[in-house]
């Protein structure tokens, strides 16, 4: 192995690590605020990539129907409460957000053929279709049991994951897709070749991480989310609704997931079930961060990315084993070094 190969492997490790970092951040965020271990995080990656591919072939992606269906369910649930309270304005808002928005989106898609739009508009459309599924799933699956134990929330996550993988197969079929890259630019530094998509992945990931930092540090909603993560009841007493916090968190998590999917769709083949493994590696990174620390999780993600790319060179048959074995020493170290405070008991 010479320097050039090491650089190439490092480059590959950074690209995959950047995606794992995004997912790890989303997992830490969701767990901190809602105590949900969000296994379906990976499905948002797959749904995002596959929806973008469907748009590019000129079809309305089937996730649009899922959005309509979820929207209708939420509208019925929330609309009923609003009706019972005789709250006319709330009713209009619920209907507009959960029925009006998906229908408007559907009308837009059928009015303009999405295949001929510029790539960035297609990406925006994909985000517009898939991201709202995050808060809707929170409303349907997690909000009614928001006070349940971590274990029950985890079981619901597993169920949701299995359901979404099944829907993915139904929607997109068993074969994978690969979308054309955002730019065909290639940069050569001596013998090292960097393609434009890798720069996109790293840049957007870095930007997103900075944006998340600013959001949590500077905005009132970010601060409120942090407050909820530290003390749910305290935040509620200060007038910040935990339901709203949950929805906002899931919106962010879905946004991160879909964006990751859109970013990696041109560099790899995405299948309906690819998301799980990507999400799992993000989870390994999140564990390294103790499911609490954002910078540690991001560093862990880069470590996972490097480990994966170098082990695929040295011992490709044992790549997954090496990556997932990483979790054992990390857990040992954490259990020895930390006072475990279980809020459940």
């Amino acid at each position, binding site marked *: 192995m010479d320097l050039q190969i090491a650089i190439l492997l490092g480059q590959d490790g950074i*690209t995959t690590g950047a995606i794992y970092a995004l997912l790890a951040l989303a997992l830490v965020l969701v767990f901190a605020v809602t105590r949900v271990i969000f296994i379906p995080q990976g499905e948002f990656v797959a749904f995002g990539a596959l929806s973008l591919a469907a748009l590019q072939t000129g079809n309305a992606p089937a996730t649009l129907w899922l959005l309509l269906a979820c929207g209708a369910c939420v509208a019925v649930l929330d609309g009923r409460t609003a009706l019972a309270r005789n709250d006319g304005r709330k009713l209009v808002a619920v209907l507009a957000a959960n029925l009006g928005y998906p229908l408007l989106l559907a009308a837009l898609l059928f009015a303009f053929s999405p295949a001929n739009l510029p790539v960035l508009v297609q990406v925006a459309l994909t985000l517009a279709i898939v991201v709202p599924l995050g808060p809707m799933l929170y409303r349907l699956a997690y909000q009614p049991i928001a006070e349940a134990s971590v274990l029950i929330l985890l079981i619901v996550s597993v169920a949701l994951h299995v359901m979404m993988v099944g829907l993915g197969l139904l929607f997109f079929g068993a*074969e994978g897709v690969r979308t054309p890259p955002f730019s065909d630019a290639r940069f050569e530094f001596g013998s090292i070749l960097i393609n434009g998509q890798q720069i996109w992945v790293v840049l957007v990931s870095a930007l997103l991480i900075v944006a998340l930092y600013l959001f949590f540090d500077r905005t009132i909603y970010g601060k409120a989310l942090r407050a909820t993560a530290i003390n749910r009841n305290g935040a509620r007493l200060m007038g910040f609704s935990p339901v709203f916090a949950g929805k906002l968190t899931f919106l962010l998590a879905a946004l991160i997931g879909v964006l990751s999917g859109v970013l*990696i769709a041109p560099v790899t083949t995405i299948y309906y079930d690819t998301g799980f493994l990507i999400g799992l590696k993000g989870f390994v990174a999140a564990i390294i961060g103790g499911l609490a620390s954002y910078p540690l999780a991001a560093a862990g993600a880069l470590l996972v990315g490097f480990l994966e790319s170098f082990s*695929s060179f040295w011992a490709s048959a044992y790549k997954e084993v090496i990556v997932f074995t990483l979790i054992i020493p990390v857990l040992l170290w954490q259990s020895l070094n930390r006072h475990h405070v279980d809020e459940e008991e």
Partner: protein
Amino acid sequence: MKMKKLALLCSTAALFASQAALADINVGVSLSSTGPGAALGIPEKNAVALLPAEIGGEKINYMLLDDATDPSAATKNARKLTTEDKVDILLGSSVTPTSLAIAEVAVESQTPQIAIAPANLPPEKDRWVFRTPQHVNVMASAVVAHMKAKGVKTVGFLGYSDAYGEDWLVAMKPMLEAAGIKFTTVERFNRTDTSVSGQVLKIVSSQPDAVLVVASGSPAALPQTALVERGYKGQIYQTHAAANPAFLKVAGKAADGAIMPIGPVVVVDQIPDSHPSKKPGQAFVKAYEEKYGAGTFSSFAGHVHDAGSLLQAAVPVALKKAKPGTSEFRAALRDAIEGAKDVVGVHGVFNMTPTDHFGMDDRGRVLIRVENGGYKLIAN
């Protein structure tokens, strides 16, 4: 009381229903139409609808179950089919691990099985199990012959880290040795991997004359594109499992020039008229695409069709010896399939023997090169 009556009524109805079914020939089908093997299982499930509805004057009932590419689910399906439905023959499954799971039940319950995957079994368990896909040896010999003819001396191997990758490696090793060709490096990857850069770097830096990629369907596109992007100039060989429209679509331009051995039905319009599979192949592709849409045909559907061809040849022979639904009939059916001679399927010609339950010879494969997003038949 009402419930009791209802239960009684239901069980009587069920009894009548099962009795009616007993008179016909029951075929139990378990396919992997969901899970990781879905790319194979879905076209196979589609092909079941095109299987013969009647053979030798007897109605054929197909009981179709999904095993989700899970060996334990396949075992459960096979047990249900053999004990509750008392099927005369088992069909499936789509991939090797699930087929092996069904084979256990087939041997135990003494029910013949036609697997739709090239599953290898030790001789003592092989008695009740037949397969329609080509043995990997048949395919590998075509690849090695082509390598030898082109003067290839060294080969890099990049294959699945599962039974399919292992089967190819085991099949290739002695053939390559005999041809004086060496492996430079043997690398593995998984179907769901998002990057194979590490493996590809290692292969390219070992400078082989050719690279063999062992993967199925669209996952085979990732190594193909990675090799091309890394500037590899040698010949890339793919295997027959990669030959489907999704591979061509995902790999795009990068697939051009790849050579693969495939069943003749994939290029049925290009094979010479003298090939026995030409006519049935054309008819089957036409029937399939009429039902499911133009361009949807995949070679995996052909393997299910061929299982139907074997049934069509064997059932009349077995009917002369015993009545369907009995263990005698199952044994007679097994003997009849083992005795199948010159049964023409869309993937080639079957000649089963007691030691060969694959039955395919060199007529079961052709070599093709990918050109402009399509397949071009090349001389062996």
